Structure formats: structure tokens, C-alpha cells
């Protein structure tokens, strides 16, 4: 693999990793807040929180897949090097 190609892929993986970490950290923050609020929420509030948690769960599923893929990509890059 040419050096510039290697670097391009490397940078892409780093960018993707940063994006995953940034997004998951945001979700984590929101999750912590929701978790706290849930304990003292009313029934209808709880429904809204649960709905929101479902959305976060879906977003996390995507992030989880992306993190697996990125990890594999990094391993592949290491092998190709």
C-alpha cells in the first residue's frame, strides 16, 4: 500500500473513531440525565423518557456497529501495513 493511501485510510479511521466517541459521549450524558429524571418522573413523563431512550438505543446500535467496523478496519490496516 502506498504511503499516501495508508495515511488517507488511517486518517479516515481516526476521524470515524473521533465521531463515534463524540456521539457516544453525548448520548451517555443524555442517558445519565434521563436515568436520574426517570426515578422521579410521572407516568406520562416516564413514557416520554422511555420513548427517547428507545431512540437513543437505536442510535447506539448504529454507533456500536460503526465501532465494530472501525475496529476491524483498523486491524485490517495494521495487517496490510
Amino acid at each position, binding site marked *: 500500500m*502506498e*504511503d*499516501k493511501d495508508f*495515511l488517507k485510510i*488511517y*486518517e479516515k*479511521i*481516526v476521524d470515524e*473513531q473521533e465521531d*463515534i*466517541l463524540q456521539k*457516544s459521549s453525548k*448520548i*451517555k450524558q443524555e*442517558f445519565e440525565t434521563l*436515568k436520574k429524571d*426517570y426515578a422521579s418522573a410521572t407516568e406520562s413523563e416516564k413514557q416520554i423518557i*422511555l420513548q427517547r*431512550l*428507545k431512540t*437513543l*438505543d437505536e442510535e*447506539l*446500535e*448504529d*454507533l*456500536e*456497529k460503526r*465501532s*465494530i*467496523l*472501525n*475496529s*476491524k478496519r*483498523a*486491524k485490517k*490496516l*495494521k495487517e496490510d*501495513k
Partner: protein
Amino acid sequence: MFKKKITNNNWVEEDGKFILKLPVIERDSVQKVYVPDGAVFVSKYSFYNCISLTEIHFPKSFKYLDGDFFDCAVEKIYIQNADNNIVDYIPSNFDFICKDEEGFCISRFCNNNNPTSRFLHSKYLLPYMVNYWDNKEKMSRLDVIRYDESYLVSYLVRKYSDTTGCDLVEKVLNNNIKNYNLLLKQINYCISPTYLREFARFCDALGVFTNQPITTQRTSKSGKIIVETVDYAQKSREFIREFIRKGTNLSFLNSIAMSRISGGFKKEFADFVFLNFPKIIEQGPEFLVDCYLRFDEVQTAHTKNKGSCKQLAPTVDFFVKYFDETKFKGITDKNRYIAKVIGKYYNEQYIFDNAVSAVELVEKNNIPEHILNHELKGYVDIKSNYIDKNEAKQPMIFDRIKNKLTNIAQNSQQTLNTLCDISNKKFTYEFLRKHDVVNLVLGKLCNCCAHLDGVGNGIAISVMAHPDIQNIVVKDSDGVIIGKGTLYINREQGYGVCNSFQVSTKVCESSSANLKLVYKTFKKGLIDFAKEYNKEFEPKLKIINVGGSVYNSLLYYVKKDCEIADELLDPIDFSTFSFMTEFAYDGDAIDSQYTIWKADEKSR
């Protein structure tokens, strides 16, 4: 605006991207997947976890997949067009293609039941084969590709595929194969497959396979714009013909085969060869091979001695002298190693004499090998503390989210570890042994004046003359020095001043990510040094500053990362070590400094 609609079966279209939505548990058993008609852009996650998937059928509309097939053992891919983009998703071990009523099927294995099944010389020939499948004349051209030529065809089509597509295949088959065979005729075809490959590689370096003349523009010293057009294919054919007519023994290809030099057209090398055609032929094939294999290495050394060591155009004389190990007078068994290092960069006797004198200072001043009591090497560790281990158990969806966050954190950690491993190999720092002759030529490697014939020769010599000055160098993945900094330690007052960071022009021009990593590597090296020093010596180091002159190649990152020093630490005057009687440079930390490391109060 986010748009979502449900298409047939389990496919969902989101903002124009198609994705197969199936629960993970159902994915395991999927064997065939049909992407719906009209799908242009398909998400890579469609095939996620489909471990039993063997066939994917793409519709005519399909153009893009946003990644590779993932986690599945696909054996057959059905396509109905062969857009250049599609080629990227075909795994390289798909060697066969056939056509049936559904379209083209590319597969890992030959389909014996289908009489149209053909060998796919290269996946990059796919657009050509699909477009001309029914054109017997065009397809018959592929049939005449000999086994030994298929390497060449794949190589060329791959190399140039992104620009010219099918036309290129025509050109490769019509012209390049012809060119190549014409050249092979010169050597009577009597070479082994390995030699054939190396011959192709060597021809390619000279430009035999360039498709059209190349026009370049440069500005002369007087400011006049000079436009030149060179037909490298024509020139290289002439050269090789002449080269072979001189009775050249083809064993020179063996040396090329032994090398691990990467292929491709090397314009600078080709220009050098054509410009010096008779002189090179006169020197013989071994010289040519040396020039080919060591072109970049020699050119790294072939710079002006003054200023920032500007690159010079290659000349046969310089190459001849570079390879000559006996050009200096007074070489003895004791100093031969000095001649070997110095001889790569200089031809002048006085420089060799100065180098010998500098090395003698080591003995005379009883200079140790390192400032520390041991050698120090390392790399940037980019691992981060992303894992959150202390999560309490939560019910239901809370639990699920928590698990996912943990999984993401773990995967991220793995990725970071891997990236770390990769980057470790990318740049490493090392405190160069103070006795190493390379200290005297570092400026040549890093495009700065700190070398025996530069104004900064005092910086180069100081390492061998003073016990508390040492060079920290950064090496690339091949172990080549690409950056240097000269560190002076004031033991009594407990501080260090690194003159500046000098990085080779090549790396400076490569990418900001590279430069940033080089900076981090330097910083890591200096921090490690300070920690080790403070374990070994008293008084401890309190601070290390780095010179902030405009000559610092990494000034941008230094300024971004470090605080400007309010009070300048007293740097060493490097001009006192110079062999030059006239102007000698005093250093880069005289007028401006930035603090790159400071001991925290507790550790002082």
C-alpha cells in the same frame, strides 16, 4: 430533510440510502439477498451479521455501497451494469465472470454449468468485459493475453483505471502490450516470469506505459515560464533499445527483483536517465540499477549545503561520487566508518577532515554516549481513557443502553490500541548516540543548516564537544531520520532548551496529520527524557523550552500546544563550537522560546 419509506420486503430507504432491516437473529440464516429495483445507494449494514450470505443480487440501478461487504462469506455477486464504482466492492479473489438471464455473475469459483464462464484477469477489467461482453472482436483481445502478460494488464488497468476506464483497457491492449512486446523482442523473450515482472516494473518507472506525452511547466531563474512536453513512452523505448543493444546482461533485473522498491512511473528518475542517456550507458547496468534502486536515497543527500539545504537536480557525477567509497584521502580502518557516512553527503576533503576532528573531540573531551545513563527511544502512545468501567446495573432499556455504551467503549479502545500500534510504527523518537557520525549530517536529512558544511555546523559539532548536548531524532516507519532537535541541559540550574524542531521538507509537504504526529513524537521524547533524567540526577529538571524562531519546522504546533516562555532560559551559544572562522549560527532559541514541559510542583 430526513425521508424514510418502506420498500419491498425488509428494505427501508432512508434519505436515498437503502438498508436491509432485519433483526440480528434472522440475519444469521439469510443466504440470498435481493436488493430492490431502483436502489442506487446501498448501506453496508445491510449485510451486517449475515454470516451465511452467499449471493447478493444488485439491480441495474445500483451504483454505490458505502463500504466493503461486512461479516459475510459472499461467493457470488450479481450485477447488471459495471459502473467503475462497483469494481471497488468486488473482492479481489473473485476470479470468474459469467452471464445469465439475470445479468452478470462475478464469483470466487468457476461456474462449470454456465458455458459463458470466463476468467476475470483482473477485477479492474470488469467494466470492459461487461460493456463489450457481446462484442466478439473486443473480447477476443482478452483471450490473447498470455499468462505472463495478465500481470501487466492488471497492473496497468488498476493503475490508470480511475481516470480513463474502458478506453484505457483498449490502450493497454493495443499499445502497451504492443510496446511491451516490442521491448521483449529486444531481449528475445528469453527471461523468466520473475524477470518479466521486474522488466515491466523497470519499464514502468521509465514511463513506457504512459499513455500520452506529459507537459510540465517551470519558471527559469530569469522568471521566464518554460513549458516542456516529453513523450516518456517513446523516450524510454529508445533508451531500453539502446541499453540492450549495448549487450547488457539482463541479470541486472535480478537486483531489481531482490529489491522491495515500489513500482510506478518515476518521472524524476526517467528525466535523469534520458538527460544523461550516454553517460549512464557508459557507466553500465549496475550503475543504472543502483540509480534506480537508490534514487530517492541519493537525492536526499543531494542538496545545497547552504541555507535550508534545497534539493538539487540529479547528476551522474553526484551519483558516481555517492557510490564511490574511496574519494577521500587519509581513510584508515579507524575512520572508514566516518568516510562512509560523510561521503554520502559531501565530496570535499576538508569536510571529511572536519568530521574526523569532530569525532576526535569525543575522546578528547571524554564525552559520554548519552546525557542520561542509558539510551532512550519511544513513540507516541495515543491510547486514551475512554472506557468507563464503573457502571451500576440498570433494568431493561437502561441496561441495554449501558451495555451498548460499554461495547462501544471497548471497541473504541481496541481501535485506539490498533491505531496506536500502527502509529508506533509510523514515527519513533530516539536520542541519537552522541558518538554517532550521523550527528554531523542531520541537517542534510532534515533540510536545515545543522550539518558540517552549513552555517549551523556548530550545532552539529556541539553534540560531540559538549557532554550535555544531545540530538533527539524522529524516524519514520522505515527507520529513516526525518526530524531532529538539539537538546541542551543546564544541570546546575535544572532546565533544558531544545534548539528547535527541524523536519525534512518531504514530511513537511506530506500532510498535516503527519506533521502533527511528528510534533507529538518529539514532545513525548522530551517528556520521557525529563522523567528519566529526574530519576537519575539531582538537581532535577524543572522545565524544558523549545526555540520559537521561524526556522522551527513545527512552530505552528508548538505555538498551538505550548505556552510562550515569559522568561527566556539561557540557551547555549552554538557558534562557539563551529569550525567556521566567519559567520556561524548561534541557534534558534535566542529570541523566543515556548515551554514544552514543566515539572509539577509536587515532583520538584
